[in-house]
């Protein structure tokens, strides 16, 4: 149950809005963080917290692509396939991932580690091809970089190749000793 485990976090979220329903997306994110997807039980509980009917919660969940109604792999590889990334090779990237992982886009590997999804524009058009893995962006991808990222994820659960605070072109490096 979310209410017991996240009492303070839920209270903090609710305090931001004068109307309870506004807390719906934040609470759904909380549920998804907990279980990896939004379960029916979670939707029921959230409906109770926000004094909504379960269908009101469900109709909202189904509108948004980032909320999953089914469990996915531990690492959700979302590759942008929109025009800007496609111009610089996102189809090749998708093919490479499919080959490396032995699955098609939309599928999850047998070990439950990786799910590949083709998604629409993620707002990283100048640094394509790119993919989002769970919360992190990986940009300017090449086959070599993808191989390293997959190995890092398997071994460490994350990769140093993820993008930090974004700026492109990159600023000049700080002068040493300045």
């Amino acid at each position, binding site marked *: 149950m979310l209410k017991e485990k996240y009492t303070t976090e839920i209270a903090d979220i609710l305090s931001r809005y004068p109307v309870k329903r506004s807390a719906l997306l934040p609470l759904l*994110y909380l549920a998804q963080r907990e279980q990896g997807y939004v379960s029916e039980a979670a939707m029921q509980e959230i409906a109770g917290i926000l004094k909504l009917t379960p269908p009101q919660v469900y109709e909202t969940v189904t509108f948004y692509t980032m909320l999953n109604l089914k469990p996915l792999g531990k690492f959700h590889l979302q590759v942008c396939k929109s025009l800007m990334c496609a111009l610089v090779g996102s189809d090749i990237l998708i093919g490479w991932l499919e080959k490396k992982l032995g699955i098609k886009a939309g599928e999850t590997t047998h070990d439950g580690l990786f799910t590949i999804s083709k998604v629409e524009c*993620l*707002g990283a058009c100048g640094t394509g091809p790119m993919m989002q893995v769970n919360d992190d962006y990986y940009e300017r991808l090449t086959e070599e970089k993808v191989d390293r990222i997959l190995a890092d994820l398997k071994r460490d659960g994350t990769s140093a190749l993820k993008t930090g*605070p974004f700026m492109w072109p990159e*600023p000049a490096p700080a002068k040493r000793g300045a």
Partner: protein
Amino acid sequence: MPKHEPVLLKNMLQPGYTGSLADYERAGGYQALKKVVGKVAPADVTAMVIKSGLRGRGGAGFPTGVKWNFLPKDYKGTKYLCCNADESEPGTFKDRQLMERDPHQVLEGIAIACYAIGAETAYIYIRGEFVLGSKILDQAVTEARAAGYLGKNVLGTGVNVDIWVHRGAGAYICGEETALLESLEGKRGLPRVKPPFPATSGLYGKPTVINNVETLANLPHIVNRGPEWFASIGSPPKSAGTRIFCVSGHVKRPGNYEVPMGITCRELIFEQAGGMRGDKPLKAFIPGGASAPFLTPDHLDVKLDFESVAQAGSMLGSGGVTVMEEGTDMVWAALRLMEFFHHESCGKCSPCREGSSWLVQTLRRILAKRGRMEDLETLVQLCNNIAGRTVCAFGDAEVAPILSTLKYWRPEYEALIREAEAHRAHELPMAAARH
């Protein structure tokens, strides 16, 4: 020294600048807020913004101060400011950089706007995928609140400004301002029928202003350096100030470039972004995000300001400039964008919901060399039955890729169809009948 003086990107271009509160203060941050809050009448701040000529940087280009003035006068109840950080127009990636590299510049802009319109609460509606950006903003809000720039009793003046970061969850349409409000209210992001406009009935039915991240980030500079300074940059009076253009596609140096409005497309693509990757000739470009009609090499000397780009038959939109080299298949390019729009159609209006599906299917058929000449007429008819027949501007946007590629590269469509016809001529009558 860069050829053009950066304004919004100035801090982050300094080596070692981290975007922390200390860094921002050292660079003169929050001086503008100190200058206005409790010292300048809110109406005078609005007048200053109108005088500067600042227009919205999100896509529509509406004059910012004029938008603020639409709020009901002498209204004593709650008002809201929403910062539109949904940045989801394909080709656009400037707000992400502004938020992640210099978050306090955005927050100071929000605080100034809140003061001017009399809002005590602002929500930053940030697209759900920008997890890092939302964390950076959250942390910056906490820092600014602790330093007295935000929260209750800002700088001891009795003014309250609370800012909350609210993540969307993956829906392009939530960048449309009334869909954003619906989403912020915890509902499906379906655009509202206007009127009433958000200025009179917005978030929770209260008067609300919605401004883009880049628009708000300009405010501290307008206060610090004066509206006359701002109005002298770019192509005043209609296109004052700088724009951060996001260059993507087949160029040597894609990325964000802040330049005065009114430089030519040629300068942006060939000087700022380094010219064409592999030095192939340029075939096409989109000047203002996926919703803007394609342009051709003949348009390279068009000035990047609101009026000039509109005159050329496209729009400046969100500032996302996507460049395509010779050899790019324009039917394929139109299909890629059309697939985006079909996926993102919210489903509220039938012409857009059904029409986008028909457009994708027709384009796929043509690209798969199974089209017929009459398909081209069907495409145009479908487009004409979508544009102007929907609740929001999405309907007008989604037809741009098809109508503009048909206008300039119709022979490419026809060549694919002629191949299909040649193929069909060799089929047995029974097989042909199945098409």
